[in-house]
Structures are given as C-alpha cells and as structure tokens.
C-alpha cells in the first residue's frame, strides 16, 4: 500500500487547505497577526540597526577613527615617551594591506591659557591634509575653519573650552606643556576654528593643531604617538587582528574603537538586548494567538476528527493536519511579514525617519536626528526563524491533543 509510505498524503494537505479556506476570516486574522508581528520586529531591528550604524559611524568619524595604533600602553597612559618608534614601518604595513585611510597624530596633555583663565586640554597635532581620510572632524567646525596645509601655530578648540577660556576667533592662546623629557614648553597659538558638535567629548577638553607645529613645539620633529585608521565596519575586527599580527615585533597596540571605548559597544549590546526581549514578547503573543486559533479550531472539529478516524484516517494523519495547518499559517504569515517588514525598511531607508522632534538636541549621543533603517541579515534571519518556529510550536499541543482523541468519544461529545 503505497499511500501509507508517504509522509504527508496529498489528501491530508487538501483537507488542510480546504479548512484554511473554509475558515477564511480566522485564517486571514491569524496570518495577519503573524505577519504584523514579524513585520514590526523586522522594522524595529532595521530602525535599531540603522541607529546603531549611524551612531557608530558618527562616533568613529568624530575623532577616534576605527582603529588606532600606538606604542603598547599609550592608550592607557598617554605619555610622550611612548611615541611610535618606527612609524614608517607601520605605514608601510598599511600600504601593503591596501588600507589608504590613515593619518598620523601626536597627542599630549597641556594647559590652554587665555588672557582670562586656564583650561586643561588634550592637545592633538594632526595632519590637516590627511585628517579627512579618517574622520569628519572638519565638518564639526561651527565657527571659523579647520586646519589647513601650511598652518603654523593655528589652534582649534571645542565650543565649551573656548567659552570657558572666553576666547574668540583670532585670539591668542598660550599652550603650556611638557616635552618628553619633562621640560616645560610653551607656545602661542591663534584660535582659527571652534568645534560646535553638541557632543560633550568633542566640545570640551580638546585642542587641535597641525602635526608639524606640535612636533616643533615639543622638539619631536618627525615623531608621532599614534596612527588613526578608518576602515569599513564589517572588516574592522579582521583588519585589527591581521595588523596586530603583522606588527607584532614592534611592541604596538592595535586598538579598534570597541576596545578603546567598550562602553559604546556595551551600550549597543544592551540596546540589542532590549530588542531581544521585545522579540520574546512578540513571539509569546504570536504563540498565544496562534495556539488560541488552532486550539479553538481543534475543539470545534473534535467531532470531525472522530469521524475522520472512524472512516479510516490514521492518528498520525490527524496530527499532521494540525501541524500542517500551523506550518502553513506560519509560513504564509512569515512570508507576508518579511515582505512587509523589508518593504517598510527599504522605504524608510530612502526617506529616513526624522526624530528631531523626539530627540532633544542635548541628549543625542552621536546620533543624527534622521534615522535610516538598515537591514541586518543576521537579525532578520534570527527573527524570522523564531517566528516560524514559534508558529510551528503552537501547532504541537493541539496536534497532540487531537492525536489523543478517542474516536467514539470525539463523535459523541464533539
């Protein structure tokens, strides 16, 4: 008997489809619920991922870049004595690895003194011509201009620092610091630009000048303390790893941004965690909703199942009917949900979602007011698989109960 060897007999599928069509309203409601749940999750992930990407990109673009290379221990304790001993070898390694987006820096702590008062600052000497390769810092200048090639003792301050020092464009500022031997050095700079980013980390405690001027002031001609790199997000870890292998004998630290500022990564993980929680809640709702549908539909058809068994349907086939019903609802609902979710993401990715009304200008941490939702295949896959398995799971209990039915009782009581 060939029919007993098939896993799902076509006639069982036919009954399932007839049943889904026969109860069209219930079927559509269930499918809609699954689709809406999935679509909203996909969209939420898209929004979330878009926001994170935007934030991370802005965060790296602000000043730190993607990867920084210093002498071992410099990031923890930035001292001039920990300068990069062989920068040309690092740059050579970058060039051979086809990583063109790098820029050199010399960093030290210093005091900025105006005619009125004094502020402690992180003084960074950067290559004006190369900085655009690694950050978008130039775009953050709200007042005046960014560093230019050929700049001498020009200085850029954050808005808060400038305000504290009560200085304006064109004003002289004396910078006092120590050279790498501990001797006091001082030089007069001219304020040429003010950073008005709205980010605390940039607007306060930062002083930028040209690499050449700072090298001259510190008597460190040709010396730097670090190299900043900008790389694509998806290659970040791989590049950091291969560089640190390549440069192993130079006693360097190759630090991706996430290592320098783990709190940002943690914040994103935490934020994703909330979304996982949300996925869980939606899953629960989907399971409960579909279970309810299938359960009611099973109770309603108790007599039908009794009759079906009486006329020669195997219990296995009865169970299959309910599982198949659950699977069909899940698959159709998921397909619609995927289409809807991705559609909404693609649409909003183009137009962007303007949150400037919701986000106060003060509270945003490197986040643009207009979010462009992004499709992340990992999150999409995870969510779709969860919803699909949830909807299959919802079929198991009703199927199990239907399989346990005694035909005579089912016919009598159904």
């Amino acid at each position, binding site marked *: *008997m*060939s*029919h*007993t060897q098939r896993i799902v*007999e*076509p*006639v069982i599928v*036919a*009954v399932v489809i*007839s*049943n889904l*069509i*026969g*109860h069209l309203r219930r079927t559509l409601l269930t499918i809609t619920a699954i689709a809406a749940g999935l679509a909203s999750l996909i969209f939420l992930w898209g929004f979330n991922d878009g926001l994170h990407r935007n934030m991370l990109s802005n965060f790296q673009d602000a000043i730190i870049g993607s990867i920084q290379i210093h002498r071992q221990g410099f990031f923890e304790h930035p001292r001039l004595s920990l300068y990069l001993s062989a920068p040309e070898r690092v740059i050579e390694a970058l060039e051979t690895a086809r990583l063109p987006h790098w820029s050199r820096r010399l960093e030290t702590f210093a005091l900025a003194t105006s005619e009125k008062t004094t502020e402690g600052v992180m003084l960074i000497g950067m290559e004006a011509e190369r900085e655009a390769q690694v950050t978008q810092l130039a775009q953050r200048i709200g007042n005046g201009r960014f560093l230019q090639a050929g700049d001498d003792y020009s200085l850029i301050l954050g808005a808060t620092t400038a305000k504290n020092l009560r200085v304006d464009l064109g004003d002289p500022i004396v910078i006092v610091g120590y050279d790498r031997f501990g001797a006091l050095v001082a030089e007069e700079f001219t304020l040429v630009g003010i950073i008005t980013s709205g980010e605390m980390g940039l607007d306060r405690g930062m002083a930028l000048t040209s690499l050449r001027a700072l090298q001259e002031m510190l008597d460190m001609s040709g010396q730097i303390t670090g190299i900043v790199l900008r790389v694509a997000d998806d290659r970040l870890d791989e590049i950091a790893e291969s560089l640190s292998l390549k440069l192993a004998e130079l006693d360097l630290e190759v630090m991706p941004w996430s290592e320098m500022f783990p709190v940002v990564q943690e914040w994103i993980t935490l934020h994703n965690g909330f979304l996982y929680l949300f996925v869980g809640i939606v899953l629960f709702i989907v399971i409960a909703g579909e279970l309810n549908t299938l359960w009611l539909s099973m109770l309603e058809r108790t*007599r*039908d199942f009794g*009759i*079906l*068994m*009486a*006329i*020669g*349907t*195997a*219990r296995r086939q009865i169970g299959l009917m309910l599982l198949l019903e659950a699977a069909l609802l899940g698959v159709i609902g998921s397909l619609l949900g995927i289409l809807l979710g991705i559609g909404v993401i693609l649409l909003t990715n183009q137009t962007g979602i303007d949150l400037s009304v919701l986000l106060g200008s003060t509270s945003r941490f490197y986040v643009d007011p207009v979010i462009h939702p992004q499709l992340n295949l990992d999150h999409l896959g995870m969510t779709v698989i969860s919803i699909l398995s949830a909807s299959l799971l919802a079929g198991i209990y009703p199927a199990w109960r239907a399989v346990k039915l005694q*035909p*005579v009782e089912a*016919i009598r009581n159904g």
Partner: protein
Amino acid sequence: MDTTITQSIISVRDLSKCYWIGKVPFPALNRVNLEIYDNDFTVLAGRSGSGKSTLLNIVGALESADTGEVVVDNQNILQMSADQRTQFRLQTIGFVFQAYNLIQVLTAQENVAYVCRLQGKSKLESLEIAAHWLDAVGLGELGSRRPNQLSGGQQQRVAVARALATNPKIVLADEPTANLDTVTAQKLVCLLQKLHDDFNTTFLISSHDPDVKNASSRLIKLSDGHVIKRWDEALPPADPTQLSCPIKNLSLSQRLRRLFEGNPAQ
C-alpha cells in the same frame, strides 16, 4: 451464490464490555454472541442504553472490548494494532453515524472522495467514484455543495455514499434515521435497502425506527447488553407499500430517479 449468503462475516463470541466511571461499572455488553451473514441486512434493535452503539463500535474496530472474540471478515479485530484497526476501518467498514457525518469544509463530492483518496486512489479517480456514488444515492447534482447547503436527509445520503465508496464488506450505520423526520427517514431506509439489494454488501444498522426494522432480513434485539431476540429470516419479506417505496421492481437507477426526482431539496 447460496454459499456466500450463508457464510458468516461477523462472528461475535462472548463479548463483554463495561464502562467505568470512577469505580462505578456501567456494563454495556454482557456475553453477547451473534452471527451476521454475508450480504445480510441486519437491524440491531433495542432500547436506549441497551448496547447497540457499543456493539457497532466494537465490530467497527472503533472501540475495544473487555473479553470475548470478534471476527470480522476473517480478521480477529480485538487483536489488532492501532494501525491495523485504521486500515480495517478504511478497507472493510463503511460507517454512517446518526448525524453530522460530514466534514463541513469539504463539498459533498470531496467528502465522498476523501475515503477513496485515503485508500490510495488518485484525486481524479476518487472524484469520479464519488460522483458515481452521489449519483447512486440521488445526489448527482449536488456534489459541489457543502454540508451546510444540504438538508439533513441529503447529508445522510452523502454519508451513505461515502460509506459505500470504499467498496466495504460491511456498512455499519448507527441510527442513521434518528435525526430525520418520518418521511425523510423512510426514504433513507428505502435507499439503504435498495443499495443493499444492488450491491454485494452486508448492512448492520441500529435503529428504533419501525421502518428500518421492516426493511431488515434479520433483526437482533438487545436489552441490557444481552441479545434477547433474534429473527433469522423470520420476518415477512418487507412490504414495499408499507415502506412507501412502491417501486421495488424497477431498476435501481429508475427507482432512485423516481424517488428523488422533483424533490431534490428533501
């Protein structure tokens, strides 16, 4: 073939069945012995609670028994595994229940075709067989209707068509007329009898209905789980006028047409 007519197709030996509700026993069948012969049209009579349904369900391998032996079509059904019982119900038995026999989401034709497809026949062949049997029960035109678009009598006739569509050895019908009005019930009885006359199938029907009893070639009466009376060929041959089927001498299709023509809504 006289030999086949007297051959026993259902043989029940010392069959007992007791239901338990908690610790209280409800005896349903008590040492029942009976023999049903091939191609019989046997009616199981008896008061409510006398054990008719229980007996039919056991014979149809829908229910288990406590003690005894039931041999149906040379198969000892009480010894069967669950899968064997399912196959037995599919291949050997055709069931007709009191009411609501049909799957609501399937059309009349699909309801009948379903069992053929379970038997492994193709969709097309099954639908053809279903159409044939719907024709035989006088519902040739109504195959595309769903059960809720059919009257109670029509639904029962679809159930009869389904019971026969698998070409079973035995049709078991548990009070098939109980939910019908008198006239409709009579017509269904006529139909059952004619189908029995035309096809080589054994019918075992439980009923209170005097019309059904009159149609039978044998009558078995149950009381409190015992067989108390048995008429083997003792009944006078069914009186066609009494059955309101004054058409017994016509061919089946002629009779069916007569019976249902101009009254498809009954």
